[in-house]
């Protein structure tokens, strides 16, 4: 029984041979293949850029979700310090949903990063092979005799064709990955935009924040009120004393203008 690997290898070889057989003049095959190689190089570089863009988008989203999670954590603390366990519980429940999302994003981020590295290496390998192929192609064309060219071309052509097949598959895999990731990223963007996860900039207020603000303003009102009450309750006594001393001090001053005039000099 032929193993799986052998069957797969045969498929790659058959593919290269088929392309080679199509050409009437082997030199045309070389030029055509070289054009294809350059196109593929462009494509793999674009692939690397696309994956990097997706990766950065994930990073940004994870950052936003993290900010939101930190905010909920802070709200839970404030709520608890004010004895509102129900509100703290609500904030922590929302936080745990976010934590799950963040962990999910991080897993995807790792996988995208691996994909980016793989594609970068693939593009380096392809570049090296394309350069080698160009040199070989010119040599073959310069010393061309139909008989020897066929075999010389065959070797180089199968090698590069295999590499191109490999790189092509890598690009497809990366595209599939970024596509499914973009769909999920889009869903998170919508969620962030809808306010369901609250506004990470903190400009719009969520219900927990409103409740905390209401509590804070209530307690501020209470403490202001208590302060005012204290001031008013203590006021009559002090006013009476101050009033008494003022009258005793100011009463004699008109009678003794000399003393009154000297006072500023003495104090200064």
């Amino acid at each position, binding site marked *: 029984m032929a*193993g799986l690997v052998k069957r797969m290898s045969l498929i790659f070889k058959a593919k290269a041979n088929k392309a080679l057989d199509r050409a009437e003049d082997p030199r045309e095959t070389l030029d055509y293949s070289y054009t294809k190689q350059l196109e593929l190089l462009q494509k793999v570089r674009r692939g690397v850029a696309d994956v990097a863009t997706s990766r950065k988008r994930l990073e940004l989203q994870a950052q936003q979700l993290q900010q939101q999670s930190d905010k909920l954590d802070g709200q839970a603390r404030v709520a608890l310090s004010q004895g509102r366990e129900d509100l703290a519980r609500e904030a922590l429940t929302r936080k745990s949903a976010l934590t799950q999302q963040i962990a999910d994003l991080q897993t995807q981020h790792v996988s995208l990063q691996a994909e980016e590295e793989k594609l970068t290496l693939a593009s*380096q390998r392809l570049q090296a092979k394309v350069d080698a192929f160009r040199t070989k192609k010119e040599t073959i064309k310069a010393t061309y005799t139909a008989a020897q060219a066929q075999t010389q071309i065959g070797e*180089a052509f199968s090698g590069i064709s295999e590499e191109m097949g490999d790189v092509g598959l890598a690009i497809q895999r990366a595209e599939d990955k970024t596509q499914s990731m973009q769909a999920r990223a889009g869903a998170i963007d919508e969620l962030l935009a809808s306010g369901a996860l609250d506004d990470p900039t903190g400009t719009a207020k969520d219900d927990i924040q409103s409740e905390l603000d209401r509590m804070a303003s209530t307690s501020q009102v209470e403490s202001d009120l208590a302060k005012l009450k204290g001031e008013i309750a203590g006021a009559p006594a002090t006013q009476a004393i101050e009033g008494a001393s003022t009258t005793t001090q100011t009463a004699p001053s008109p009678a003794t203008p000399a003393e009154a005039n000297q006072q500023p000099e003495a104090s200064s």
Partner: protein
Amino acid sequence: MIIRILGEGQFEVADHTVEVLNTIDSKLQAAVDADDEPGFHHALDELLALVREAGARVADDYLGPSELVLPAAESTLEEVRALLGDEGLIPG
């Protein structure tokens, strides 16, 4: 013998390693036939580890083809089956 791991590049592997490789290859085929995904991953991981360890990396500018082509790491059974079933799936 030169062996390619898809997504990783080419490795030069000694003949005695290829014998071991053939045994694992049979396991891999059996797993695919039996639709045994865990068995498939196990055999594939074993196969790739063997080539990476026993093999020496071929220079990037080497232009020759490989004797054998191995599926990429983390390939699913379905992906490999698609590769085998349809030549058109290999781009380039």
